[in-house]
């Protein structure tokens, strides 16, 4: 039996050791997260150098926008204090250099175009600007080279212990800086080359062009007449292409006549601005390229006219999903009252497009699924020919209407019990029908739908459990169907009494208390005070249990007992609880050999009385009593 238990226990211990590892098999194979409070990290110098290299490499390929964007991102990096100054300085230098190179590149592009169109005066101005940018870029490039050296030292690139990846990243960065320097040199050379072209074309024949526009005040969409003369000195230039530009946009092309004059109508675009700047431009083409310089007329200012549109609206401050709301408004503009198209959108989501005129009232229903919070309501009046468009924006709050619940719950519940819960769901708009009401009480839950008056009634069967008396909570969750109504979650409490369990436990406790008290009153069970034990040097014989000895067996045992006290006292041998009858006999026989025979006989009789299946006779009991008398007499004599 013991062996089997040991095996079973061993299996249990092994299982306890092995099975905790089993759920680990369900875990993801990668670390899902680590504690951010205890996480540590340091500046990734290799990655920083690699990314500086990428930025500078992008710039050296003239992708300045991408390089500047990456540099801007880099400014959001958390930099350790020890490196903050040098990295910020490095970022600043990179940004200055990239911006300067970008500007230089764009300026040189402009200069190329101007020189190609023989627009010599403007080209000269661009080339002068480019010269300044080149000088600036050279200075910043030198600073960046010095800053790179400082950065290398701070990052320990030249240290003997520097990792290969760091050395490699540093080498790539320096290579990219070198490439950038080559780009700068190339741009400087381009600027020189353009300057030489400028000097060359400076010897070309100059041209001039005039422009008159009539009338100089016109409605948008109307046509005006443009005319002028293209000449080279006093010589008219005929058959040349003249471009009319309005606010930098080409709107018409005319061909000059024999006398160098050109004329034609241009239509004013529907741009609702107060003025437009018009110029006539001549750009030499074909064989003119090697003969004439380009030219541009002086600007002519056109006063444009249109009907400004004013929009006045009043909107509610708060709206609710799925609930129509009213926008009152008025569109006014000079001229006749024209029907206008108006678009309404919430944030960027269009929710209405209609045509209105003058004063208007719009009933708009926001989508059911619109997110709550502050939203931008935009009303856009679309431009219509001479009538300009306009936009009005209002910040409005999308909200949900809170629900209220009147709930009737019992104040006191005696378990087990079926309780009836009833209530009514309402809002400021009235009763809420068809809402799902979920009620959870301990482990029981039920869901009920509200009636048309918002009322609901349901039963909860609460079973017996281990509870005694106490407060318990109901959780009531209301999910309305109306998109404008908010979700409601409330809690209520009732006092719950479990009479069966409480009474049974109380009775059990009473019985326990009764038993304990009775046990304490029994004199035989009183413990010997600790002080008595400590103060006495004599051995204290344990008291015999208070057993009533009845019958013949009882007589024999009583006879043994009655002699026992005297034997113990005289022999100084005590019948302790762990001493058998025979052990006691053996000890006494050594001290009092005179009674050993009688005591042996009496001991045998007691053993038979205690353990034998055969019932002793009264004669045997008489013999036992006689032997006890004999022993006592012998002991008295001896004493």
């Amino acid at each position, binding site marked *: 039996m*013991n062996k089997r238990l040991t095996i079973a*226990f061993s299996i249990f211990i092994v299982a306890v050791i092995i099975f*905790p590892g089993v*759920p680990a098999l369900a875990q993801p194979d990668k670390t*899902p997260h680590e504690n951010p409070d205890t996480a540590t990290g340091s500046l990734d110098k290799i990655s920083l150098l690699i990314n500086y290299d990428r930025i500078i490499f992008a710039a050296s390929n003239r992708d300045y926008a991408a390089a500047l964007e990456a540099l801007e991102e880099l400014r959001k990096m958390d930099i350790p204090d020890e490196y903050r100054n040098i990295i910020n300085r490095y970022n600043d230098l990179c940004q200055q250099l990239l911006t300067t190179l970008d500007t230089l590149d764009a300026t040189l592009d402009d200069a190329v175009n101007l020189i190609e169109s023989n627009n010599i005066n403007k080209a000269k101005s661009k080339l002068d600007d480019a010269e300044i940018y080149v000088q600036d870029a050279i200075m910043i490039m030198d600073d960046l080279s010095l800053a790179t050296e400082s950065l290398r030292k701070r990052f320990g690139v030249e240290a003997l212990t520097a990792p290969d990846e760091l050395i490699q990243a540093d080498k790539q960065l320096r290579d990219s800086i070198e490439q950038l320097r080559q780009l700068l040199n190339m741009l400087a050379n381009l600027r020189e080359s353009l300057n030489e072209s400028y000097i060359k074309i400076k010897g070309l024949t100059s041209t001039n062009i005039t422009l008159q526009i009539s009338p100089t005040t016109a409605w948008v969409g109307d046509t005006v007449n443009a005319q002028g003369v293209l000449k080279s000195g006093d010589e008219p230039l005929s058959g040349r292409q003249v471009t009319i530009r309005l606010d930098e946009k080409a709107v018409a092309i005319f061909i000059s006549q024999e006398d160098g004059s050109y004329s034609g109508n241009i239509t004013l675009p529907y741009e609702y601005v107060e003025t437009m700047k018009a110029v006539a431009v001549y750009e030499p083409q074909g064989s003119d390229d090697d003969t004439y310089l380009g030219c541009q007329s002086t600007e002519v200012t056109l006063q444009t006219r249109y009907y400004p549109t004013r929009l006045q609206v009043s909107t509610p401050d708060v709206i609710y999903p799925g609930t129509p709301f009213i926008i009152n408004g008025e569109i006014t503009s000079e001229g006749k009252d024209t029907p206008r198209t108006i678009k309404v959108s919430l944030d960027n989501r269009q929710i209405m497009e209609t045509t209105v005129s003058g004063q208007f009232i719009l009933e708009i229903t926001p989508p059911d699924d619109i997110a709550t919070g502050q939203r931008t309501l935009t009303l856009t009046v679309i431009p219509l020919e001479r009538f300009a468009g306009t936009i009005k924006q209002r910040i409005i709050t999308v909200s949900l209407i809170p629900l209220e619940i009147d709930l009737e719950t019992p104040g006191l519940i005696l378990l087990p019990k079926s309780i009836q819960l009833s209530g009514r769901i309402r809002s400021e708009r009235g009763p809420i029908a068809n809402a799902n009401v979920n009620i959870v009480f301990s482990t029981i839950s039920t869901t009920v739908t509200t009636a048309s008056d918002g009322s609901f009634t349901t039963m909860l069967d609460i079973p*017996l459990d281990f509870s005694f008396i106490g407060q318990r909570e109901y959780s009531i969750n209301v999910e309305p169907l109306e998109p404008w109504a908010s979700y409601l979650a409330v809690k209520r409490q009732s006092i719950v009494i479990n009479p069966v369990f409480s009474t*049974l436990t109380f009775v059990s406790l009473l019985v326990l208390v009764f038993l304990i008290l009775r046990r304490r009153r029994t004199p035989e069970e009183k413990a010997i005070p600790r002080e008595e034990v400590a103060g006495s040097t004599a051995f204290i014989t344990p008291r015999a249990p208070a057993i009533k000895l009845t019958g013949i067996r009882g007589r024999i045992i009583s006879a043994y007992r009655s002699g026992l006290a005297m034997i113990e006292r005289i022999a100084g041998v005590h019948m302790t609880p762990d001493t058998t009858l025979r052990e006691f006999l053996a000890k006494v026989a050594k001290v009092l050999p005179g009674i050993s025979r009688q005591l042996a006989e009496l001991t045998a009789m007691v053993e038979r009385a205690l353990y034998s299946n055969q019932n002793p006779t009264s004669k045997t009991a008489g013999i036992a009593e006689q032997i006890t008398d004999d022993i006592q007499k012998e002991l008295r004599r001896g004493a």
Partner: protein
Amino acid sequence: MGLKKFMVILAAGIILLVVLTAWFLPLDDDFRVENPSWNGSKALIASYTTQSLESLNDLPSAPRGTTLILVPYLELTSGELERLKDYITRGGRLILADDYGHGNQILEYLGLEVRFSGEVLADPLINYKSEYFPRIIHFRSDPLTINMESLVLNHATCLVNIEAENAIALSSSFSFLDLNENGTQEDDEPSGPLPVIHRETSGEGEVVLIADPSLFINSMNEIDENEGFIQNIADTTASLYIDQSHLPPSDLHQAKSLLSRGREYLSSPLITAGLVALAIVFTLKPVWHKRRDNK
């Protein structure tokens, strides 16, 4: 005392100790709403009106306007997938937050092209403390990203099969997918900006994909504007649910569940009455024995 008696007492003592420990020891499982320590999600329940779901059967019957946050670290059954699809189709919003779990199973079932990469997103420069806490700094205008300037993720992944410009949030251009998990970008490792949050409509509802469920653990709450992001989720929904039935159960959680079920079972009227009767029999046993002895 015999060996048998010793073992019985020892076994009873161990079982009692294990039961008491399991009952009272705080749960430390990832994403559990009962867990108040760094990796739990108790703050979510404490700060917002959120209901935890132990089963997808408990999804609201009227899903419109509601939001379910799901961290699928366990595979979903076909029944659960169908319930989830029904929830979304009828207007619910699913926030599927996954990194290395079973999110792609759900996306496949819903018929969406987008997928979770399942590889580790690292950002050696734009980060919080280390490359595995990438700081997200690129946001598209969206109700979920109102007033957001930066989010910090924790051992995240990224989304694939979508155009970067369609994503709500993107990692920095210095980030990369650390395929071999050595913390350094290799030539064949895709580099940022990588999409980490995306929204797609499905039926009448929508699915918001977040490439890191750790946004919802207690310790990430107060870093940068993570709390603001969760606030935006809460602000754009009528009621918020968080699924707990697809998280790997730990020994402790299983033990607690077992004990809870046992307690529920014992709370049934019949068992309660039986136990009470048994308790009374044991209590009164000495009285009956005494009476028999006296006879």
